[in-house]
Every structure is written in structure tokens, then in C-alpha cells.
């Protein structure tokens, strides 16, 4: 039972959310794409081991969509951010930069 930070409602159990796969895949202009490119938009989303910026919607709460960094191996939860806002760096990167500083 992941504990997911809704940007509006705060921490809530995962059963209140629906998953929306990789974040930041915008709707392309369909008419400029080849069939392959269109298929890629429809069907292919990142599936990495490790940190993934992904979309969630708090369907049982405020019904808002948001993006979230989450680690697919450790289930660590990173920062949440709103659509159309700047994507924060992946948590591991944040850590590295802090170490350098």
C-alpha cells in the first residue's frame, strides 16, 4: 500500500489513485506522424528499473492529475509536481548534487 503525496490532499493510500504511466508524453499532432510514430505515442511508455516520473490521478479525492517521481525497484517516493510545471530532478540526482555541493 504505497503512501502517495497528492499535491492537494496530502499523503493518501494508493487505493485512492489511478496510475497513468510515464509522465510528460504530450499529445502529438496526429497528422504529422507516421504509423510507427503514432503507434509509439499510443502504446509505448517508459518502463525503467529505478526512478520513473509517472502520472497519477487522485480519483477518490480531489480528482486532480499530477506527476510523481517513484523508484520502481525500491518503491521510494520522490517529489510530486503538477502537469505543465518544471520537472524536478530525479531524487538520486538531487542526492548527488548535494554531495558535490
Amino acid at each position: 500500500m504505497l503512501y502517495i503525496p497528492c499535491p492537494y490532499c496530502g499523503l493518501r493510500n494508493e487505493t485512492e489513485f489511478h496510475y497513468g504511466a510515464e509522465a510528460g508524453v504530450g499529445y502529438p499532432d496526429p497528422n504529422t506522424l507516421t504509423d510507427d510514430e503514432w503507434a509509439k505515442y499510443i502504446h509505448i511508455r517508459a518502463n525503467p528499473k529505478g526512478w520513473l516520473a509517472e502520472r497519477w490521478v487522485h480519483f477518490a479525492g480531489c480528482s486532480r492529475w499530477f506527476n510523481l517521481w517513484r523508484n520502481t525497484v525500491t518503491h521510494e517516493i520522490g517529489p510530486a509536481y503538477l502537469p505543465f510545471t518544471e520537472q524536478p530532478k530525479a531524487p538520486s540526482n538531487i542526492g548527488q548534487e548535494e554531495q558535490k555541493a
Partner: protein
Amino acid sequence: MSEIKFIFDDITYKGHHGEPMSAALLRSGLLTITNSTYHGRPRGIIGLGVEEPNAIVQLISDTKESMRPATVIEVADGLHVSSLTGVGALPEAPDEARYDKTNHYVDTLVIGAGVAGLKAAHEHLQLGRKVLLIDDQPKPGGHLLHLGMNLPSVLLDIFTNENLTYVPRCTAIGLYDQNYIVAVERRSDHLGEAAPAERARIRVWHIRADKVVLAPGAFQRPLIFANNDRPGIMLSHAAATYVAVYKVASFRQAIVATIDNQGYRDALRLHEAGVKIEGIYDVRQIASGPSIDAAKAAGIPIRFRTAVIDTLANEKGACTKVILSDIDTNETFERSADLLAVSGGWTPIADLPTYIGIKPQWSAKHAAFLVNHTTDILQTAGMLAGEFGGDDDPAIFFGPTLNDEQSRVAYIDFQRDATLHDLKRAVGAGLQSIEHIKRYTTIGTAHDQGKTSGMLTIGALWQLNNSTEGKNHSLSPADIGTLSFRPPYIPVPFAALAGRERGPLSDPIRISPLHQWHVAAGAEFEDVGQWKRPWYFPKTGESMDQAVRRECIAARKGVAIMDASTLGKIDIQGPDAAVFLDRIYTNMFSTLPEGQCRYGLMCKADGIVFDDGVTTRLGKNHFLMTTTTGGAARVLAWLEEWLQTEWPDLKVYCTSVTEHIATIALVGPKSRELLQELVTDINISKDAFPFMHSRNTTIDGIQVRIARISFSGELAFEINVTHSYAKHIWERLWTLGRRYELTPYGTETMHVLRAEKGYIIIGQDTDGTQTPYDLNMSWIVSKKKEFIGKRSFQLPYLQASGRPQLVGLLPEDIDEIIPEGAYITLYSAQADEDGKTPHTGFVTSSYHSPEMGRAFALALIADGLNRLGEIVSIPIGKKVLSATICDAVFIDKENLRRD
């Protein structure tokens, strides 16, 4: 402690209320509890708690429950138990017990009320935090309880702190991400017959803690030697506790075999309780510490570098003699004992942290795997973290070298009867990974999940590796790896985890405001998602077919009424509402005049139809969308997703009004006449109120919106009214409708009526692979605008010829209703040599039409629209039906009846 009586295997035993059943049985002198699962060997109690592999019994009191360790059953009046041989049985009687669940959020959760856990609780309370302390024992104290000692007052004081919630008999079974813990509290079995009826027998706790302290303690390990499974051979800590604390006086003469100082402490306790200690046999070269000094002072004989190698038994199988071996000379000798107490070292309970991927680390000093872990949110304490108390000094030793014959009876997993021989065989078969060896030998897969056998397996493998040709001496048990633990930490009854989700509470039942009327009218119901919808309304003695025919005729010839309240309804407002709908639906909505309705179809981006319904323009910037019953939540989520994540510039708000608005469909040629009696504010004549128009008016002063929408092809009115007035309006229509023989109908009749008109049902005439073109609905696909899914129509396969298309089917036999889902073949098609018959489509909807007086169907048929008039076959078992492909609209192709 009051004395009680309980029954085990039909014999009555006495015990003290609340003590472990194992203690009472041992006190009565019962050593052999059962026979082992595969080898049939007599077995007795070896442990103190959930680690017990042998004494697994079955509760018979109330509902039978198998596979419970006798070491954790608290005896109470009325307890009735029988033995098992490793195979449980399920109860035939229904389980009348209640089970519940609760959710708990807390600052600090402490798991384990031993000294380490109590200290942690104390610390966190001192910091002003709220603490939840859970422990699987009936009383706090952990190890101290086994030693018969009282808690120090500083730890006792925490129980009066109002910030502490202490839950005994509560076992953490799982640790999950973000400090989510599932625990199981046993709440009534220990009360026996005194348990209140309304009390939940087991409560499952879902706990989320800001911080978790794990102080679960440790299990003592047995040792591997030949015939190490005989009744009378016990873990030394358990034996000493039964004798010293529970006053078990059944043993006269004991041998203690040990690899650490714990054996000495236990020997002392046995000695002090009056058991003669024949000797302490220690595998170590030398040992020191207060416990050794004390044992010497007590005059207990001690011999070093000596290990048990075998045992002998009496006719009942119980241990009578112990064969010992000098490790350096291999000289063996025999000693008599009715108790062999073994101390093989401690195995800290590392299960919970491993569930979230924290790996235990080997410590040679402790001869154990530890989890010494501290983060902001999770911390281990006590023995798990390596706090063994300082007087243990264990050897890394799991058993002496045994020959082939001895290793066949040297048990590692008692419950699975898995031996050292099995382990050697697995290694010989070429297996290296401990996971393979576990699977090959089945070690660790029984009820106790390897609580005692897991570490023995690792140790035995390590010893086997070290002994082969003298190499690998640098290996440690850590190089063997650890076995994976899997939740739950202890077995949990299904019923406990199902909790209150039983019967009607297992999934919500959704009902319309007219539900009670339908029930009173004798409706048969159909499950549509979570909704209960009237399926048909049989009159006394009527079959479903008869009822549906009557209902269909009423709708086509007179007037009929249906509850359509379950349809999804979404209020859509905003300056860009029309633009938005143009993008969502395949057809145009920006051109829809105010006060009018239009049917719309929506696709996913892959071009596949996913919902449909009628949308009404209530105002310039205001629409009311209806969706399918099952699609309501899905469609609203779909709209929100596009608005929020793709088109935030569109000024549109969507609001669900599914339950706010109840919808009553009044259908049939006499519907206008009937409605006219109630609606006096507006003119509802054909010309004043045309098809697909919507009007606001009142009935009995109640605001209603009436729409000229028809899902049957008949003249029809949909009356929309707020939830709280729905029943009043329905009953008014019902009362007035008597003169018209107003007939209520359900979903089955609705389906027949719409199929006669070729109207689709999403999910019945579609299966998630149809484009609008496949449904012969090219008329609804706008060429003038972009909409979701349009691009996919260009994909080669979606525009290929030969795709299944929606058509009608008329069976040759007019009374033969083709089964829905039946597959269609070319006329007179035959199976090939593989037994396969090529098909050309399948039947989606099929009914008898009272209007046509015959059976008819809708079907998806390859290239069907170009094959009208063709005769096809439908094999049904051994029968082959024939039918003719036809247009999907069977009745009133000119749409004359709807006005």
C-alpha cells in the same frame, strides 16, 4: 490463574487459564503429540511459540481450524483440540465468528514488547510521541516472561501513559512500503466460552507509522544430529521455561547440548527446578562468563569439545539415551536422559525487514544474521540488532559430521521431514543456490516457514562446503545466502483477511431511488457493474420469456415505463464546452442548438469505440452528457484527464450528476397521451416538442426536464427529475397509467427493443476492437474536425477490408433464437484436419421479437455490409443453424414511429 479443563484427542487435560496448551500437555506428561507428516515418526513439542514445527494441532471448539501450534493456543474452558499429522482439514460448518479490520495512524509503532521494545516505547513516550505497542504474547515482557521475571518499574510505568496504546496477542504479519504494517490481533479465542458474541474473533490492523521500531526477538536453534527429532528433545530455552515457569515436572534427568552460554543458563534453571543435569556438553574448546561460573558452582558436570551425534528411544519413541561424540577424537559414549535440551544459538527474527528488501548481515560474533538498521523511519532493536546480552559467545556450529545412515534421520525441517541426507542429495544433484535447495528438499515450505530450519539449512550447507576436500575454509554462512522470507510472518486465516467484506458487504450494491418500488413490484434484478437493475417484471407464474414478450408488446403498442436512472450523467459547463465535446466525440456538438439532444460516440486514441450516449445542450455553454451505466466513472475520468493533462487552456468544468438526476423513460405510442395528463405547463405535441428536443417544465410543481429521446424507436419521453422526487413522479405515472395498462419493463426488454432498431450496446455489440466504421456508423464520424482516435482510422488494419461489421441476422427457423456469442461460418463449412473450422463472425445480440413474430440477431460479420442476403451457418454443438445476413435495422427503417 484459575484451573480449567480442555480436551485434546478426546482426553481431558487440566491446565491454568491462559497458559500455552503445550505447557499443560507437557505437565501431564504427554511427550508425543503427533506423528510426522511423511515419515510418520513420533514428535513432541520442541519450542515455545510460533517457531514450533511439530505440535501443530486442530481447534475443534466452535468452527474447526487446522494448523495451529499448540505453543500459541491459550487454554480456556471449552477448548477442544485434536492432533494433526501435518495435513489440515477445512470445517464443514459455516464460520459464525466475526472478523474485523481497523486502520491506525501513529507516531511510533513498536513491534515486540520484550525489554528492547519496551525500552524503545519508553524513549518515544518520553519524547511526547504517541506510541502503539503490539506484541504477540498475552502479556508484555518477552524473554522476561520466559524467565518468570517481572518488568522493571521504569518499563512497567509506560502502561499508565495515556499516549501508549498497547495491544497484546497482536502479531505483525507484514511490513510494506512507507511504513505500512499489517498486524493480526487475536481477540476472543483465549476467552473460551466467555467471549462476547459481538466481539470480533480476529482484528486485522492496518497501521501507518511515522516511525517503526522492530524488536521482534529471536528463536533458539536446534542442532543437527541423528534422531534429533525424538519427543523429549527440546530447545533448551523452551525446556527450561516449561519446567521453571510453567512448573512442568515430567522430566527427571536432562542432558544439555550447547554451542553457547545460553545452554548453561537453561541448565541452571532446570537444575534449580529440580531436574538432574547429567551434564552440559559444549562443542567449544573453552567457555567463560557468569553462566559458566554459576553452572560450575552448582556442581553441574561440563564437558567441552563434545557434541550429540545420535539418540536412542523407548518403545513410545521418546528419547531415553543420548550418544555423544568427542569432536577431536571421534570417541563416542552414551548417557541416559529423558530430556535432551539443545541450545544451537539464536536466530533473530529478520522476517519483517526483508519483506521490503533489507538484507540481513552475517555476524560471526553472534553466529547469526542480524539486521542492524537505523533510518529516520525504521529502526531495529534488541536481538535483531545484535543486542544479545553479552554472555552468549556462540560457536558457529550446526551439528557434527554424520555418515550417510545418520544423516537420513538427522532432521533439518521437522515438519517436512527433510533431512541432512536430502540436503546432501540436492548438492549432489548440482544445485548451488539455496533457493534451489529449498525447493528440492522442500525445507522451509511448511507451516512454520523455516523459522527453525532456515538457519540450520544455511549452516549445514556451509559445513558441507567447508568439509569438501578441505577447501572453501574462508567461506562464511553469509556466502550461502539467506532464504527469502515472505509475508505473512505467521499463517493467518482467510476469514481474518477478508474481514468484513463478506456477503452483501463484499462489494457495494448500488441502487436507484426507485429500487424499493421495483422490489415491491416483483422485479428480477440483473447485476450491471455494482448496480442492481430490474431485468424484467414477471407476473405471477410468468416465465422470463413470457414477461419480456408482454413488456415488449406494451412498449410497441401501448405505453411502458423504465427506470433509466443508472445511466451516467455529467454536467459540462464553460465557454469551451462545445469545443471540448467536438474533440471528445467523433461527431459534432458545437452545432447542436440549445434545448436539443444528440447521440454521440467516443473513441480512445487507438480508434476503438469506448462509450456512447445522448448529450443535451442546456445552454450556450452548458451541456448534460449521458454515458452508459458501466461507463459513468470511466468517462468522467477520461474527460478530466484530457482537460487537466492535455487541454488546460480549455475553459470547461465537468461535474457528475449521475445520482442527482433520476431518469424515467416513458415509452410507446400512448406515452404522449399519458404524459399529457401530468404535464400541463408545456405543449408536448409532435410539432411543439420535436424528437431530440429537451424541455424544462413541472409536474405537480416539481421541476423536471423532459427529453424526446428514444432507445426503442417508439414515441418516448425521458423524464429527468432530482433523486428525492423520483419516486413521487414514478408513482404518479403509475397511478395515472392504470387506464393505459402502463407496464414496467427492465433491461431485457430494453435490449430487445433497441436491437430491433439496430441500436448498439457498448460491451455487448462491441468487444473493445470495433471502430465506428465496423459498427456501420460512418455517419457519426465527422470529416470536418479533429477528435480523439481519428488518426488511428488510417492504420492499415483498421481500414483493411474484411473487418467484422455489424449487421442483422434472420434465422431460417423463425422460432430458433441463436445463442448470443455463437460463431458464424460460411454456409456448409467443414472442419479441417486439425479440427478447425474457419469462422466469419459471431452473434452479439439475439432475441425473439414479438413485433416481428420471429427470432432475430445482430452480429459482427467479416465484410458483413457487403454480404447482405448471404446465407451463413451457425454451428451449435452438433446442430447447425442457418441464417441470412440482413440490415441491422429490423423495424421502422423510416423512423416513423418515434414521433
